[in-house]
């Protein structure tokens, strides 16, 4: 069978001077340093962990400690046992259901809400990281007036004054600015306000909201519709720059679950595998999963899509159309948020043409409470502000000064407003220019509600009283409604009481709180009119700039979250930075190399940023990400990266042509967690096409390469009771990073800062390897999560001089931090290099606010000790103790590791290998099962299921 072609080495593939510079200098990101971590680290050390790890075992007198009971103990509360509450976490206004673990009233960990349609138990990295934001010591902690500390009372008075004026003037001059609002309660409150003050206006601005979806739908159907995809029915998926696996895409968790379920099903039960076509400019994880990835400038996708409509010349389009034709009703075309409205209209048309509407695509009413053209809305607001018509502006959340389109010059206009008040989680760039700033309550401190991507009304309930006396928008609007002392809880509850027909409201409410959602509120399917395609706009030419929310920190709302900052971007493993992604060819044309700092200008706007040569990026195009260049975010994010919003025009929200690049200097150092781009002739990642698999089921583990069990000098140990193991399905894994952050949150993993990451000292227990194969400018991209292998013959254990890492009776490779003296020999001898070392005191023992977020069931590591994946042994022990007490064995699926729980693709399964019926045993029985470096005979407990692709024979090249 045909070996998948991997690059022998980048050198061999080098095609251009500039690319060679990138290829050979694997370590572009590393300059030797003669001194110590930069100032930020002092804080970052702290953004990681907590209670001290005891010192030497002998001759240490324990300090006197106190123990503090409740005065009145809550009813349902059992000391020492965590409680879980169902709530929702918002992203660009859309809710995703979550279950939040709370120890002694402190939220410590986010899990997905299995009952919630948008989650099904999975989480995004951003959801996992909300815990850290909750305890972020940089959050706004007090009401300020003109920058001076003030009180909520005085703010209420000030706002009451505004209200009185508004009363007189029917609200003329009063303006509300919010992000996208899906919360029924909040919408109702705003409605009341607008009713009370007819001349008041409500504007919305969501920097990375669904602007093009809205416009596209209006263009196609004359009205806003919300398209929901049913990927569990989709055999053929065409993505027009739609990164539907990326956390930023509405419903991404659900889509990932549905799509990967079909892939796994195909691999296991030989049903038909879905086939994914992706047309995109910048590499994305969706492109990584694609059987066929069409690399093109963002602007060219429109014409590509047109081709599909008008029956095309390009053979690729031919093959694609044929495939869609063959799968009428079971195919789907998805247009991405980053595309012009027209592309969305085309997608609607194609789905209509191939009979997908009602099967793989359904249309519902929009989930936004008030779907509008937000750009127009913001433009209008700015104009009014400049004209002086706006007397009082109330900004609920959001950060327009930072993220409004540059051409609107929002800040200048804002200064014409007489009274500016902002409610915000952070005292951010906008707060700086507001007379009043009120700290906003974190999601975990708030009562509220919001709709999921399919309209499901989800409950937001607090797990903890506001740490910094934050207020919810409900309370602030309450002031305008003369209900200053009405709690958010009452507001929300009363709203739903009003909605609820019937007498049993309290039961209804209890169920809603328990489930975290209100059942049956998903919007019903509707039939839209026939789709029209609007007139084409003049095709742009020249180098284009594409704008994207950062894969990790998003649009900037979570910039100050160190977990996300240190999370490697899936496609280039870069941390702590954004950059100008360009293709090798374009880099060559402009004679640029990775690390060169260029001045990027478009339509007279300028910014400076470092270049990153990204294999697989479209030529004559460059991509920059939002979320960086913050000046008022906090100690973590301030001064990191550059602000891409500075180039964004309201006319070209996602991409625009006419970019110029001027080389200013060079030698900018990035911090990436993986330096070698390829597999270097080795085969850690194995894959085959479905057909190859059918003909060679043993491709992942050919006879020749197998190591028989008896190939050992010593008798193997046996593990009579439990025998824990992990299986990772590479067919399903999309590389979305959720497991990494989940692991970080569960296991109190420290953050080390850019300088340390650059040295190669990142601490994430799961290393999500990313390999390229195929041609350099359009390679295949593969993701492979690598946790500890828990080898049965673990080389690390053999060389530890103090028995700090040994095997448990259940085959766990135990790492005992408090026994470790730090010789680092184990890491040297680990062929998988999955061990992490605390070269400094990385855990933060000093920032008290962070203590609360730590998992009390896991030691916080001290300086000088080794650490690594433990298979979440704290969860294993808890489950085992539970089972013991009920005098029964642990059930399959009872123990779920943090990574497994977070994974939207169900790629990871943990369980007992002694139980032949356990899910993990069943997976490992598959012929796709293989272990890394089997020839070393370490007998890993973590094994992989090789990836299966399902390419289109007409398109499969070489």
């Amino acid at each position: 069978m045909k070996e998948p072609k991997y690059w022998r080495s980048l050198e061999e593939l080098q095609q251009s001077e500039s690319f060679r510079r990138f290829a050979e200098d694997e370590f572009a990101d590393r300059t030797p340093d003669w001194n110590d971590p930069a100032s930020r680290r002092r804080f970052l050390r702290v953004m990681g962990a907590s209670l001290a790890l005891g010192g030497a075992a002998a001759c240490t007198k324990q300090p006197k400690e106190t123990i503090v009971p409740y005065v009145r103990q809550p009813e349902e509360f059992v000391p020492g046992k965590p409680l879980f509450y169902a709530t929702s976490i918002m992203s660009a206004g859309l809710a995703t259901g979550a279950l939040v673990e709370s120890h002694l009233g402190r939220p410590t960990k986010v899990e997905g809400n299995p009952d919630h349609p948008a989650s099904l138990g999975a989480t995004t990295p951003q959801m996992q990281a909300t815990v850290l934001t909750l305890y972020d010591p940089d959050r706004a902690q007090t009401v300020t007036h003109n920058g001076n500390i003030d009180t909520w009372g005085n703010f209420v008075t000030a706002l009451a004054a505004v209200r009185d004026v508004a009363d007189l003037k029917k609200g003329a001059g009063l303006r509300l600015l919010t992000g996208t609002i899906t919360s029924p309660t909040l919408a109702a409150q705003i409605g009341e306000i607008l009713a009370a003050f007819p001349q008041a206006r409500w504007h919305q601005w969501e920097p990375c909201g669904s602007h093009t979806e809205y416009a596209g739908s209006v263009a196609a159907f004359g009205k806003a519709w919300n398209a929901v995809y049913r990927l569990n029915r989709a055999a053929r998926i065409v993505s027009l720059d739609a990164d539907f696996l990326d956390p930023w895409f509405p419903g991404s968790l659900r889509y990932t679950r549905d799509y990967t379920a079909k892939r796994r099903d195909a691999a296991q039960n030989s049903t038909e595998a879905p086939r994914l076509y992706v047309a995109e400019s910048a590499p994305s994880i969706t492109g990584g999963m694609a059987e066929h990835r069409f690399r093109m400038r963002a602007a060219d996708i429109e014409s590509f899509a047109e081709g599909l409509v008008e029956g095309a010349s390009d053979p690729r389009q031919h093959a694609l159309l044929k495939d869609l034709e063959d799968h009428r009703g079971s195919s789907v075309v998805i247009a991405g948020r980053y595309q012009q409205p027209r592309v969305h209209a085309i997608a609607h048309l194609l789905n209509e043409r191939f009979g997908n509407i009602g099967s793989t695509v359904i249309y519902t009413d929009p989930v936004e409470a008030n779907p509008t053209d937000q750009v127009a809305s913001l433009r209008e607001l700015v104009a009014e502000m400049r004209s002086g018509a706006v007397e009082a502006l109330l900004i609920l959340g959001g950060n327009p000064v930072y993220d409004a389109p540059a051409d609107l010059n929002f800040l200048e206009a804002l200064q014409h407003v007489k009274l500016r008040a902002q409610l915000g989680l952070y005292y951010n760039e906008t707060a700086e220019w507001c007379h009043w700033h009120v700290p906003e309550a974190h999601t975990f401190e708030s009562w509220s509600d919001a709709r999921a991507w399919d309209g499901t009304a989800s409950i937001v309930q607090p797990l903890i009283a506001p740490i910094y006396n934050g207020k919810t928008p409900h309370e602030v609007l309450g002031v305008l409604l003369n209900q200053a002392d009405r709690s958010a809880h009452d507001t929300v509850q009363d709203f739903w009481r009003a909605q609820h027909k019937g007498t049993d409201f309290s039961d209804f409410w209890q169920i809603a709180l328990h489930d975290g959602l209100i059942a049956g509120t998903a919007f019903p399917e509707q039939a839209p009119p026939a789709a029209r395609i609007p007139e084409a706009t003049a095709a742009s030419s020249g180098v284009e700039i594409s704008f994207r929310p950062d894969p990790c920190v998003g649009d900037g709302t979570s910039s100050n979250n160190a977990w996300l900052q240190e999370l490697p971007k899936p496609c280039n493993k870069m941390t702590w930075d954004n950059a100008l992604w360009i293709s090798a060819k374009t880099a060559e044309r402009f004679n640029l190399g990775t690390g060169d700092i260029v001045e990027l200008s478009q339509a007279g706007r300028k910014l400076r940023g470092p270049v990153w040569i990204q294999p697989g990026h479209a030529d004559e195009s460059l991509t920059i990400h939002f979320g960086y260049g913050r000046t008022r975010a906090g100690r973590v994010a301030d001064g990191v990266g550059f602000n891409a919003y500075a180039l964004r025009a309201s006319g070209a929200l996602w991409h625009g042509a006419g970019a110029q690049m001027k080389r200013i200097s060079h030698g900018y150092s990035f911090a990436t967690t993986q330096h070698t781009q390829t597999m270097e002739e080795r085969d850690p990642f194995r894959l085959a096409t479905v057909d190859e698999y059918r003909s060679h089921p043993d491709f992942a583990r050919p006879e020749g390469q197998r190591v028989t069990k008896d190939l050992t000098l010593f008798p193997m140990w046996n593990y009579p009771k439990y025998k824990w193991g992990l299986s990772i399905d590479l067919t399903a894994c999309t590389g979305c990073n959720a497991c990494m952050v989940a692991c970080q949150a569960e296991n109190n993993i420290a953050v080390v800062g850019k300088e340390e990451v650059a040295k190669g000292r990142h601490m994430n227990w799961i290393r999500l390897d990313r390999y390229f194969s195929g041609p350099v400018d359009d390679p295949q991209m593969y993701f492979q999560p690598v946790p500890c292998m828990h080898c049965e013959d673990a080389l690390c254990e053999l060389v530890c001089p103090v028995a700090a890492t040994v095997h448990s009776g259940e085959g766990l490779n135990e790492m005992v931090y408090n026994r470790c003296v730090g010789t680092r020999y184990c890491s040297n001898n680990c062929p998988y290099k999955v061990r992490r070392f605390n070269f400094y005191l990385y855990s933060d023992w000093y920032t008290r606010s962070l203590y609360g977020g730590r998992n009390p069931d896991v030691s916080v590591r001290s300086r000088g000790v080794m650490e690594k994946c433990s298979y979440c042994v704290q969860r294993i022990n808890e489950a085992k103790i539970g089972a013991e007490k009920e005098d029964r064995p642990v059930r399959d699926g009872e123990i779920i590791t943090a990574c497994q729980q977070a994974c939207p693709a169900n790629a990871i399964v943990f369980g007992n290998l002694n139980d032949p019926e356990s899910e993990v045993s069943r997976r490992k029985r598959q012929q796709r099962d293989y272990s890394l470096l089997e020839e070393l005979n370490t007998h890993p407990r973590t094994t992989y299921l090789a990836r299966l692709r399902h390419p289109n024979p007409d398109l499969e090249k070489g």
Partner: protein
Amino acid sequence: MEEERVATLDPGPDKVIGPGHDFKSVTEKIGGVVFMPFVRTPRQLFIGFAVAFVLVNLFLVAVTWLFARGVGVWGIVIPVAWGFAIVNFVWWIGIGHAGTLISAILLLLKQDWRTSINRFSEAMTLFAVACAGMFPILHLGRPWLAYWLLPYPNTMWLWPQPRSPLIWDVFAVSTYASVSFLFWFTGLIPDFATMRDSARQSWARKIFGVLAMGWRSSAKHWARYQKAYLLLAGLSTPLVVSVHSVVSFDFSVSILPGWHTTIFPPYFVAGAIYSGFAMVLTLAIPVRRWYHLEDMITMRHIECMSKVMLGTGLIVAYGYGMEAFMAWYSGNQFERFMYWNRAWGGHYWWTYVLLIFCNILIPQALWSRRVRMSVPAVFAIALVVNVGMWLERFVIVVTSLERDFMPSAWGRYYPTFWDIATYAGTIGVFLCLMFLFIRGLPAISMFEMREVVHHEEPSHAHGD
């Protein structure tokens, strides 16, 4: 003028001692170095000591910073979790091999030329091992827990894990250190007596008296003494071999390509002797010059040592060759890549080239008698070999770790200022101790020199 003096003093390549020496004169010549008034100490010694002392202070600063911040101040990372510390450790241990080898093995082989250099190289061994011994502790993530590597009953009921080569190290190095000390001290006892008896000041006599423990060189003393000394020699001979073998196990027991190889023990031992002799020469040549000991450390000594260097150097060369051959012959992808990476493709290829140059090419000059006869040449080559042997350890440790099995986990190692400071610091410690020893104790074994006189020229064993 100095040169003439040398010429007259040095009896040339076939004598181990200059002409016209009797019991008294050898005793006084050697003792004189110690009893020499402080101010008359050779200028070079002062300068050398001053430099060394500065380095010692640098060492103290470096270690303080290290303990304050953690091993992160060094350049080590994942995957290259061992760096300078281990390189230096192996280097120093290697140097420490010459001493015991000269005193033990050459004694058993009845090599007359060992006599005037053994004391001196034993001291060198002690100090080298002391420097080496510091690194394994310094490099720990939590050095304050170093005692956990010792088997002692404790409240945790936990013990060291003796399958780990690091525990073998603990035993090997500590044994080697103590035995070398015994060897050195035992050798000194009769000389302490001599010093006691020939010292002028009463305090000096008291001090040497205590150290001599009342040695009165009786025939019965000598009988038991020689027996014990011979047994020590017999025991230390396998010890010397074992110590560096064990050190090499640190690498060969692991699975890392470039470490996991059975040739390491012999080739490490040879390398150790190689660097050891290089260091003896590096120190002996200046010292004999400063104190005009050319008639006791003669060209014969220098030439013999050069020959040993040449020989062990060739064994080491064979080692390198075998590594290359096995990498190819094994047919193992990782082994082959490792060698390619080490010698050609890696970031530190130049260290490998330099090491071949220092350890294999340059020393070949020693084939020529003319080179062996030229003190400056031998001195220069010895220096080069010292450097080369350090590079060898660097290549083994760093290039193997940089790129092992998983391409995704490959990394890169950059030493920091503190790495270098710590290394330089130990050199300072070593030199300081060495200079103090030369000044304060008989650097050449007196009673053995008297034996030499007795054998070489019984005729004028007594000058008058």
